[in-house]
């Protein structure tokens, strides 16, 4: 703690020596020299110029004063800006990183003394700078609309702020996708998919911006609820960006690094903050159902985390082993947060159990502390327990199969097996039943024990109860089968014997 404080103090004391992130400098230099960036920027300016001239010329032929000319022009400029920045900048960043991170020959920048965090931050900041460049190129045109009627400045700033955040979030998403350890054809497919998917972001975004422009945000800004709502949405967006950042850093970290620690820490912190935010909203609006936003998101996130966790290797690298605390008190949280499938399973289970507990606790206050909400009482708790039970049962089964029958294959096989087992048991019986029931999907709504998706599509709510018990019994069996392996992992989670630290001459 003291060392960290001293380092921080000396960092700020030497502020004159601060330099820009080297990756930002390199990326911006490359962007400036790149024909792609300058070409798209020139095209963008040309389109803006033609659009403005088109508007002014067409307006000059009309006799009446157009009260909405400013907002119409602004809407068009926002559409062009959103189109150019959302379609181009994330794609540009993604392609650049993909080219550097070819599976067979990653660029040496990834084995320099730059930390993975510095590299991802550098890429992200470069994306943000290019976004600012596009926004500033558009600014004179937008400023011009302010001279016309139908535009209020607060709306303009708010819309541009939201658009900027969206572009930055997409930049981070593109960086994450580019960091995935996939082959080039796969990455090309993802880029293509992402490009076309971007249209689904641009359309509602532009539609929302135009609606906001017409409704006038300036008046709403005086209300406290507006800022609370905005802060919540921006906070949630930043949390997602942060998660993608943490995932990207983990992806480019060397295999021997403690990749899980920052990721698990980040998710835990965001989970706690999200819970507090949801509780705040429940308290503020007096509606316990708002708690479900946090519950559902946590549930979805942790199921994804469960897949990643079982894909962890049991073997801890020497780098990680050296950092295991020597005290028991420190070793328990380390076991949960460090690399490793066993600790990861405990971490996921703890977060899901606490989420369930807190949600049930808040729901118990429905009708006592808070006004009674009919649908809150109707929320069935069995779906949460059943699906969680199934997810863990599948994960532990996959771990067992990998360990027992496929030990020579990489640990990620266990994650893949989890998905495969879930998918096969969900699809195959349904297909058989489809043909047995004269080409009807009705049977899908009937009871199919072991099918995790069946929990959500039941005709009879009573069946959810059977699912819960089946899942819990299966889970108990898998816990027993995996108990020896788990105990071995716990026993082996200890630091290596002390020796003299290496010294560089």
């Amino acid at each position, binding site marked *: 703690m003291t060392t960290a404080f001293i380092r921080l103090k000396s960092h700020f004391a030497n502020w004159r020596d601060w330099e820009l992130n*080297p990756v930002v400098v390199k990326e911006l*230099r490359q962007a400036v020299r790149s024909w792609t960036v300058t070409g798209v920027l020139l095209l963008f300016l040309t389109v803006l110029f033609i659009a403005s001239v088109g508007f002014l010329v067409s307006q000059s032929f009309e006799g009446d004063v157009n009260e909405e000319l400013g907002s119409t022009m602004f809407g068009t400029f926002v559409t062009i800006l959103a189109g150019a920045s959302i379609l181009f900048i994330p794609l540009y960043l993604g392609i650049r990183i993909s080219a550097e991170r070819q599976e067979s020959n990653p660029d040496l920048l990834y084995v320099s003394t730059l930390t993975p965090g510095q590299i991802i931050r550098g890429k992200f900041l470069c994306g943000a700078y290019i976004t600012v460049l596009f926004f500033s190129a558009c600014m004179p045109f937008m400023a011009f609309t302010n001279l016309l009627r139908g535009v209020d400045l607060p709306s303009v700033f708010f819309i541009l702020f939201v658009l900027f955040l969206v572009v930055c979030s997409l930049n981070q998403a593109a960086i994450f996708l580019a960091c995935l350890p996939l082959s080039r054809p796969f990455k090309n497919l993802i880029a293509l998919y992402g490009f076309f998917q971007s249209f689904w972001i641009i359309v509602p975004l532009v539609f929302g911006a135009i609606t906001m422009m017409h409704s006038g945000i300036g008046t709403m800004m005086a209300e406290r609820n507006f800022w609370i709502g905005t802060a919540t949405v921006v906070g949630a967006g930043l949390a997602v960006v942060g998660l993608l950042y943490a995932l990207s850093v983990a992806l480019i970290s060397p295999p*021997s690094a403690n990749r899980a620690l920052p990721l698990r820490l980040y998710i835990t912190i965001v989970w706690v903050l999200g819970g507090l935010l949801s509780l705040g909203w429940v308290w503020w609006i007096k509606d316990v159902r708002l708690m479900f936003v946090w519950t559902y998101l946590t549930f979805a996130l942790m199921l994804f985390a469960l897949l990643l966790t079982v894909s962890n290797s049991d073997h801890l690298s020497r780098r990680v082993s050296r950092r295991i605390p020597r005290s028991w008190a420190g070793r328990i949280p380390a076991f949960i947060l460090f690399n490793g499938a066993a600790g990861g399973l405990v971490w996921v289970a703890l977060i899901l159990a606490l989420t369930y507990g807190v949600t049930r606790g808040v729901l118990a206050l429905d009708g006592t502390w808070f006004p009674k909400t009919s649908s809150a009482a109707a929320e069935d708790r069995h779906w949460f327990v059943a699906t969680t039970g199934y997810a863990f049962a599948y994960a532990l089964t996959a771990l067992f199969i990998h360990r027992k029958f496929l030990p020579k294959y990489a640990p990620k096989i266990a994650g893949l097996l989890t998905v495969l087992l879930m998918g096969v048991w969900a699809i195959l019986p349904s297909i058989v039943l489809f043909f047995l029931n004269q080409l009807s999907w009705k049977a899908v709504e009937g009871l199919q024990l072991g099918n995790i998706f069946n929990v959500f599509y039941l005709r009879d709510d009573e069946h959810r109860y059977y699912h819960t018990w089946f899942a819990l019994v299966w889970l108990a069996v898998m816990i027993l089968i995996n108990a020896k392996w788990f105990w071995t992992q716990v026993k082996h989670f200890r630091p290596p014997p002390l020796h003299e630290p290496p010294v560089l001459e």
Partner: protein
Amino acid sequence: MNVQVKNLRKEFGKTVAVDNISFSFGSGNVFGFVGPNGAGKTTTMRIIATLEEPTQGDVLINGVSVCEEPELARRTVGYVPDTLPAHADITVHEYLDFYARAYGLRGKKRAQAVGAIEEFTNVTGIREKNIKALSKGMKQRVSLGRALVYDPDVLILDEPAAGLDPRARVELRELLMLLAERKKAILISSHILTELTEICNGVVIIERGKILETGTIDEVLKKGASRRTVAIRLLDGQTPQLLKELLQTPHVANARIVAGEIHFELSADESAACEILGELIAKKFKIIEFRQTKANLEDIFMTVTKGGVQ
């Protein structure tokens, strides 16, 4: 500065690329790393440069493990891969400047380091050129400059001479000799073995992930000394008789006619060669040239390796 490769093993699925190899080299040494394609040279070098993690074993750079402390180890290792820099939209100067920044050089110190390296690798004249537009030799110089810009104590060069013209190869050799004089520990892989003999102090011969020979150049050549080759040129057409005679002589093997001369391998010392010469003269063979050639690195390489890949 001492680099110790200890019981290194690397598996890629079922393929064992490097199989329990150990060797070491130190400051001021140029160590040759020789082996056929697919022998495991690049994998070993990538492990030393912290690009790969070994399945077993370790590499210690002055006691710092590349597995446990790769960030620390990287500060002391400069790696020149077998691929050339192919960055788009960046000049030579910007490229070197970026790596100087990446390795923590700041302000004037960085400018000086980049300038010095540009001068040392002789790329000052092309510093404002785009990297993509450079020739192979120039790219190799830039790659070497990148590895040297933060003044590492250990240099790992993977096939640096591949594809270079004779002039560029001579210049590279001179650069390496200069670097060795500056007390760098250098590990270099190359298929041009005659060049390695000239610049290396030590050598490791590797095949199918296993070390076949290792030691100083003199030691390795000494091991090959028992396999000296002798060439005899005669004045007239006595060649078939001589060939017949030699095949019955002790310690002589693999006697054959090469371009009008008789070549054979002698598995004995120089006195045996002297005795054979005396006997041949006594038997009235008109010898106008009798020369023996000591085995060079190429001969030893051809003898110890089988050309196997994995």
